[in-house]
């Protein structure tokens, strides 16, 4: 597992690199906006689309991190991760429609909560429940499905991951059926004016919370003792053990963090999309996994970047009326990137053992 920055406060190259990334991102967003504004001939629509892309990208990025962290540490493509995200979105739905919140606090017909303090409280509760439960679920999956296969050939846990994915989908399908389940929309439909567009507070909220989570994770992994142990384990499990790192604990912690992020993304999903369904983990998982590969699998910053890039491509296709081509465009870009940078955009290829 790598981060785009080395952990030392005095490390000048890491410092510059970090701000270079922020700078490039801002330039990219502005260029994207200008391109859209030119093609759509409207700055308001373009601003709206940029906001959509950033919101969608934030959700993809959070899910992609779970893929990239797990791959980084045990080289497993955890196909069940998209479904953990899906279960998280249902847990958020169940929390919001649970008796104490739905009836006692009273979400009412529309679900919109106008009292800021009440809204914050409900959101905090929903996030806590979903993140904690998904962290536990993800750790449980690792403990009972993957850990017994740790020394088996790589294909065994891979098949198991597909199995776990199907189990999660089927369990949810048995509980709620196959239809769309509407999620109470907590946020008002209005927002603030930006370049002539009405940007919903929901979009801003999702983007900002995701940024905080991404930044927090990056700080954790690059600066703390346990984060360093995670990176060391990702590079060389045996050597990490020889440093005194408990492998089981470190891997469990990776699943815990990945699950919590997927839980948060699940809350966003319900609020942004308006409904949840038993099979939404598959599509989201596919995109998030693609994002992780695009950014450089195993690289945290890369996964976040990849998530946003894919969202930008999709929104671009949709804004030009080519929605049905959006998946094709995403994968063409993925292939082109991998041809020129096989390790992904931020993937590093430093000699393992000189």
């Amino acid at each position, binding site marked *: 597992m*790598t981060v785009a920055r*080395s*952990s*030392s406060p*005095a*490390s000048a*190259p890491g410092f510059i690199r970090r701000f270079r990334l922020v700078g490039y991102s801002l330039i990219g967003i502005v260029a994207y906006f200008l391109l859209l504004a030119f093609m759509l001939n409207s700055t308001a629509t373009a601003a709206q689309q940029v906001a959509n892309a950033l919101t969608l990208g934030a959700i993809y990025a959070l899910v992609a991190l779970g893929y990239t962290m797990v791959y980084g540490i045990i080289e497993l493509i955890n196909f069940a991760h998209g479904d953990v995200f899906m279960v998280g979105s249902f847990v958020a739905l169940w929390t919001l429609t649970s008796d104490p919140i739905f009836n006692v606090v009273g979400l009412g017909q529309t679900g919109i909560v106008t009292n800021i303090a009440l809204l914050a409280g409900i959101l905090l509760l929903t996030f806590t429940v979903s993140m904690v439960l998904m962290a536990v679920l993800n750790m449980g999956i690792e403990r009972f499905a993957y850990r017994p296969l740790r020394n088996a050939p790589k294909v065994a846990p891979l098949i198991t991951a597909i199995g776990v994915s199907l189990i999660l989908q089927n369990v949810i399908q048995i509980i709620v059926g196959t239809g769309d389940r509407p999620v109470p929309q907590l946020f008002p439909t209005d927002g603030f004016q930006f370049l002539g567009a009405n940007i919903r507070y929901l979009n801003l909220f999702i983007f900002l919370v995701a940024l905080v989570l991404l930044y927090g994770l990056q700080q954790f992994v690059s600066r703390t*003792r346990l984060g*360093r*142990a995670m*990176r*060391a384990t990702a*590079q*060389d499990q*045996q*050597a*990490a*053990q*020889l*440093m*005194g*790192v*408990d*492998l089981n604990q470190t891997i469990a912690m990776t699943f815990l963090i990945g699950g919590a992020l997927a839980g948060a993304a699940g809350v966003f999903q319900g609020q942004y999309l308006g409904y949840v369904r038993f099979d939404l983990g598959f599509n989201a998982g596919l995109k998030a996994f693609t994002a992780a590969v695009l950014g450089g699998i195993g690289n945290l910053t890369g996964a976040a970047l990849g998530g946003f890039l894919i969202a930008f491509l999709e929104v671009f296709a949709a804004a030009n009326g080519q929605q049905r081509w959006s998946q094709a465009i995403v994968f063409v870009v993925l292939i082109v990137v991998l041809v020129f940078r096989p390790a992904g955009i931020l993937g*590093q290829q*430093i*000699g*393992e*053992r*000189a």
Partner: protein
Amino acid sequence: MTAETITSGAPGPAGQDGATGDVLLRLDDVHTYYGQIHALKGVTIEVNRGEVVTLIGANGAGKTTTLKTVCGLLHPRQGTVTFDGQDVSKTAAHNLVKAGIGHAPEGRRIFSRLTVLENLQMGGFTRPPEEIDEDVERIMTLFPRLKERTYQQGGTLSGGEQQMLAIGRAMMSRPRLLLLDEPSLGLAPILIQVVFETIKEINAAGTTILLVEQNALQALNIAHRGYVLQTGNVVLTGDAAELREDETVRKAYLGEI
């Protein structure tokens, strides 16, 4: 198989270079397997506190397997490993670091995408966080080259620097027993000298060392005692000086014909 002992009776050079004669590490009739492959076939080894003990032998003799069995990456199927009076045969590797065993493994195994500083900090993973900076300072005094490379990624170091980092990283846990696996492998002759000098210094500062080397002559020059391994058995043991003079050792491992 019973090993031939050159100096009968004497377990080690007691009183020499701080060696007190009490046993820090003992392998008793250890059998270790890789799946079906019987790699160690009843190895019995003792390392006394304060000693440098070397294991010499050809490729595949079981030297690295012995170290891996000591540090807990492998567990003996039969026999016991006793460290500081405790049976550690079944103890997991990460707990043995806390118990006081440091290991600079074969092939150095530097964390190539972590900086030199982070590699050292990882070495101190089991230590109280507030004492790590001080220990990093200590290691960098021992290896000034590492100080110059503090913020460089481990993978960008030269072979010699990586070896120093591997030894320094193992020292960060303040081990009572340091396992060194082929520290001279792939290094230029001048660097080999430096590495062996450093091993002597580390030992003089009070760390017991179990050293695996193909470079048998150099190893015997700094060791108090040695064991000769052959296909998973100890075939010869004795004081380093006597092993150096021994005819079979000279022929087989010191390159004399």
